[in-house]
């Protein structure tokens, strides 16, 4: 248990730190196009050249040839660490120019290759992750918060409240959300700043997503409120709110953790659909959602495997969160028994 928790904590911290410091870790500006280098494969790191073995890795430039890209072995470019490069805003506030690693012009170091405009995929995955992970978590929190509140109220009070809240969830789940999204987009100003887009994404997903957790929570609450200790607490004069907070909520927590681990990746992927309606993150800003939508093209999917990076990043992130949820859940279980 100890070792596993340690690995988990390292993974979590590593993930979030990398994303927070995306501008520093990434060698390139995520929006910088290089029109001579579209769909270039990942830059290979070399340690051995004609003369000898080097400690510091180096790279060659990609040249476009008739059969694709080939390495231009005439000149090698060593990889520098803690070097200066394109300017960025650390944590969105501080202007900075230091990067973890980089190479001199005119070479490019693209650890995960480039996309259709020659932009560095690695930098885009990192900066995209900032937006997507934040949006996924925020939307999940919103949906679960609303869902829990309504679910607990419905399950606890029963009868009419239950009927009306459950009726509302059914209504929500049946509606044609695509039209609603179209209407919302038509109503909003043409251009939304990145902050507003983020807020919009979160609200829209959270607004649509509260219904399912609410139903699940209500199911648990219905069983939970008949437990002996709840009846006992009530007979001792506990108020409704106290009962809900102290006794019923912990029952629900397990479900919420499972749901959270499940919803975060889905909400990140939901951005793909939303961007179809114009409600997503717009070019040239990167997000995992809009990077994934380019993968819907079959030719891209099978020809340029490195563009699967955001999908892999998404899976890795969600696995980490999933394990986190599991660990928290088992901790809670041990505590309650």
């Amino acid at each position, binding site marked *: 248990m100890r070792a596993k928790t340690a690995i988990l904590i390292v993974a979590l911290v590593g993930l979030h730190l990398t994303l927070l410091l995306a501008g520093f870790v990434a060698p390139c500006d995520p929006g910088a196009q290089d029109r001579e280098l579209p769909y270039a494969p990942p830059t290979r790191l070399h340690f051995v050249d004609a003369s000898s073995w080097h400690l510091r890795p180096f790279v060659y430039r990609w040249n476009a040839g008739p059969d694709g890209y080939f390495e231009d072995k005439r000149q090698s470019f060593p990889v520098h660490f803690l070097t200066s490069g394109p300017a960025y805003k650390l944590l969105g506030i501080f202007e900075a120019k230091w990067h973890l690693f980089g190479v001199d012009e005119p070479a490019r170091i693209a650890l995960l290759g480039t996309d259709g405009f020659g932009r560095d995929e690695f930098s885009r995955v990192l900066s995209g992750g900032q937006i997507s992970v934040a949006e996924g978590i925020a939307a999940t929190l919103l949906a679960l918060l609303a869902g829990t509140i309504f679910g607990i109220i419905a399950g*606890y009070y*029963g*009868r009419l409240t239950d*009927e009306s809240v*459950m*009726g509302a969830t*059914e*209504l929500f*789940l*049946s*509606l*044609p959300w*695509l*039209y*609603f999204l*179209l*209407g*919302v987009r*038509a*109503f909003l100003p043409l251009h939304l700043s990145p902050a507003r887009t983020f807020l919009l994404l979160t609200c829209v997903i959270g607004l649509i997503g509260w219904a*399912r957790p609410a*139903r*699940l929570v*209500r*199911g*648990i609450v*219905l*069983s939970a*409120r*008949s437990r002996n200790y709840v*009846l006992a607490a009530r007979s001792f004069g506990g108020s*409704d709110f106290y009962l809900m907070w102290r006794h019923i909520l912990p029952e629900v927590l*397990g*479900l919420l953790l*499972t749901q959270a*681990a*499940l919803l975060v*990746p*889905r909400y*990140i*992927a939901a951005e*793909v659909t939303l961007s179809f309606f114009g409600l997503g993150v717009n070019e040239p800003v990167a997000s995992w959602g809009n990077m*994934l939508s380019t*993968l*819907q093209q*079959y030719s891209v*999917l*099978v020809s340029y495997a490195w563009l699967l990076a955001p*999908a892999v990043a*998404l*899976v890795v992130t*969600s*696995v980490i*969160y*999933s*394990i986190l949820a*599991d660990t928290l*859940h088992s901790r809670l*279980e041990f505590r309650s*028994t």
Partner: protein
Amino acid sequence: MSYLGRRVIRAAFLLVGVSILCFLFTEMAPGSFFDEMRLNPQISPETISSLRARYGLDQPLVVRYGRWLRSALHADFGYSIAYNAPVAPLLWSRAKNTLLLATTGMLLTWLISIPLGVWAAARSGRMLDKSVRVASSLLVSIPEVVIAVALLAIVVRWRVLPVGGMTSMDNEGLSQWARLQEIASRMLLPTIILTLGETAIIVRHLRASVLEVLDTPFVQAARGLGIGRTRLLFRHVLPVAASPAISLLGFSLAGLLSGSLLVEVICGWPGLGPLILDATLSRDFYLVIGGIMLSALFMVGGNLVADIMLLACDPRIRTGALDAR
């Protein structure tokens, strides 16, 4: 008023509410069916407005809703502008295919997840449990759209299965058995995609609640009394542990028509999904509203079944020994 009676009334209210909101939403969305014709320089705007008038698209919202409601009560759900055919038969012919796919998926899911979830919990901490947890964690983490596209690309690249449609061209010449085989082979990929996602979720939930129940005193007592393992698990533990999972079953039923939309579109299965998606994007709104009402009907029915099962499984809810004040 009986429980069933109340639910039916609630269902009726819901359907009316959904229809009203549908009309409102379609009004909000910009664009209409004939917009595509505006791009053609050879079609005059007079033709377009004349077409709009013929289908009543320029009438005020209330009038349109009133007419639709009146005809709906006579089981006439309007005309599809695109197909120039009545909505109900159009929907039903596709709904059959979707139901086939979704029901098979659901049965498969529950057939796999119940034993898997129970056994994993029973052998908690050991090989089976560990692999189930890892696999379900992984599957849960990958959004369905990613799984679907990945599997599709693999299947196509390596020609593993036929993809798309429900039958092939020579379908009529085959025997009954061969025909069924063919439908099954084309249904395999979408069913697998549906099952994978759902199974992972349900297994996790089930495993968690079975683990909880295994620790309770009455189970310990039963074990002490010498009741066999299998009988213990499936006869005593499962009904109790199942109660949160019943809600999930309700969801499966409720989402029978709408849940497979994504998979149908990606795999080319001729169900409601591609029809409704196409209709939504082209603003063929009587068809869209018809489809939504159908899904709403299923949802209400599914939830009703789920709630009844919940009551049946957990007598404590039934006895109402818990009315607040």
